[in-house]
């Protein structure tokens, strides 16, 4: 069989894609390009990012001890933490009051953040989590500095850690429940 000229084969490729896009369910069904196209009409249709997606950093502030590890390890130093020590009621009745670290301020400047995840990794107390939430754009750069209330709100969007692939030697972590 003689070889088809490449220019005609090329026309076939575009035509095939055209039909795949317009008639995703086969030629005898009504055309539905919104289904056949690979693009998504964003504000109307939203694709769910995978669970591990690094969308935004959520803070579980009961776990935070203001130890500053995250702020120190951050490659561009976009985490601002202030805390103070205070005396918490003793664990057992009659015991001494214990010292607790109280978090006053926990701000992340998402205009600077590189979404590397080092802060989430180094946190020894499970206070920081990645949430796949991505719709937190602001009109002003300065408004991207989010405080601990806002970061705390995102805790609700943090998905549970999924199981691992077979052969993995890791323990599945738990997301603390937000009360």
């Amino acid at each position: 069989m003689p070889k088809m000229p490449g220019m005609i084969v090329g026309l076939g490729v575009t035509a095939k894609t055209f039909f795949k896009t317009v008639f995703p369910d086969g030629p005898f069904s009504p055309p539905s390009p919104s289904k056949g196209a690979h693009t998504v009409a964003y504000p109307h249709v939203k694709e769910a990012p995978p669970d591990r997606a690094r969308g935004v950093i959520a803070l579980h502030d009961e776990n935070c001890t203001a130890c500053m590890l995250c702020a120190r390890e951050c490659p561009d130093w976009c985490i601002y933490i202030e805390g103070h020590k205070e005396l918490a009621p003793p664990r057992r009745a009659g015991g001494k009051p214990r010292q607790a670290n109280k978090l006053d301020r926990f701000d992340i400047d998402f205009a600077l953040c590189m979404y590397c995840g080092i802060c989430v990794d180094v946190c020894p107390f499970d206070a920081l989590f990645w949430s796949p939430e991505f719709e937190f754009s602001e009109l002003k750069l300065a408004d991207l500095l989010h405080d601990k209330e806002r970061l705390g709100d995102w805790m609700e969007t943090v998905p549970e850690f999924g199981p691992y692939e077979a052969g993995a030697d890791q323990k599945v972590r738990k997301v603390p429940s937000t009360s």
Partner: protein
Amino acid sequence: MTAELTLPADALANQDLANNAQLRYIASQAADSRINVELETEGMTLNIGPQHPATHGTLRIVAKLDGEQVIEAQPIMGYMHRGYEKLTEVRTYPQVTTLINRIDWVGSFANEVPFILAAEELMDVEAPPRAQWIRTALFEMGRIANIMLFLGDMAVQLGGITAVFYAFRDREFVLNQIESATGGRFHPNFNRIGGIKDDLPAGWIEETKSAMVKVREFCDEMEDLVVGNEIFQSRCRGVGVIPAELAKEYGLSGANLRGSGVDWDLRRDEPSPLAWSEIDWKVWTHPDGDSFSRYWVRLQETREASLMVEKLLDNLPAGPIMAKVPRIIKVPEGESYVQTENPLGAMGYYVVSKGELTPFRVKIRTASFSNMSITPWLLEGVYVPDIATILASLYFILGDIDR
């Protein structure tokens, strides 16, 4: 299915083309001097870039033109210099991986690996096999994501707009897999000294395999839409011929070198803790050395890489993914150089440590920077449209040139 693929029957002999390139160069010089003597025409200086569609980034090429013929072309780099080598000196080792992600931003997983390997070599730790295999698989997926962009972009530089949409469409499957494993589509930051950050999520291997099938379908589509197209061939065949010897002299690497018929691939030729030696795969070369052969080699490499990912995931060993490393990483004094075959070519990190939290000095060898160095020779005597062809076929990422 790749086994049946052979060289195109009309692949030209390498030596002839090398001679042709030399002759063309001499002829263009002669023509230039003749025209200038006879007509007293002045050359026109055309500034291609820093903002120009053909340079996809901020590369600037100062071309002296005679009509549409380029007499002299000089690439000017550095418009996007971000000082990574200096920045790494004030970042701890774990922080460096976030930065170097951004060097070649389309295949960024591959950027992290040589640095991490260099640091591991200094610390004398070795990541467990499972981590190495996952690294290798993600490395190859980074390569696929990178080269798929090239396969579409080369066509769009030549005016065929559709291929680039297909590239972005099918690249999405690969990026989604990278994202669902590492959390980042473009900047995975998944490597740690002594292993990787996390194990793969359940079901990932199956999804990745189906994505790899899509990649190969895309490669077939490109073969029909772009490679087979007579216009594409006439634009690329014999344009931008790099003879093998010259390619070596200029320090080209990656598909640009293999496109000139030099069988050199660091994945195979250099001992590496990564799992490339554990599976069997093939290094693709093409004898012609022109723009077409560079495209062809990259197309085959994408296919090969997708097969490699499948083989790697099929034989993934079980076990831990992190070696024992101290919590605060201090790298002992010493120097090491590790280079790997990145999507764009050989990329290496020369790490000097004085035993502190931060590296003392990091020298980054990027592929695009060396690949660009041949452009003054290559662009001499070509026509203006060929500038776009040649630049596209050399395939550089601006971040990789200017880091």
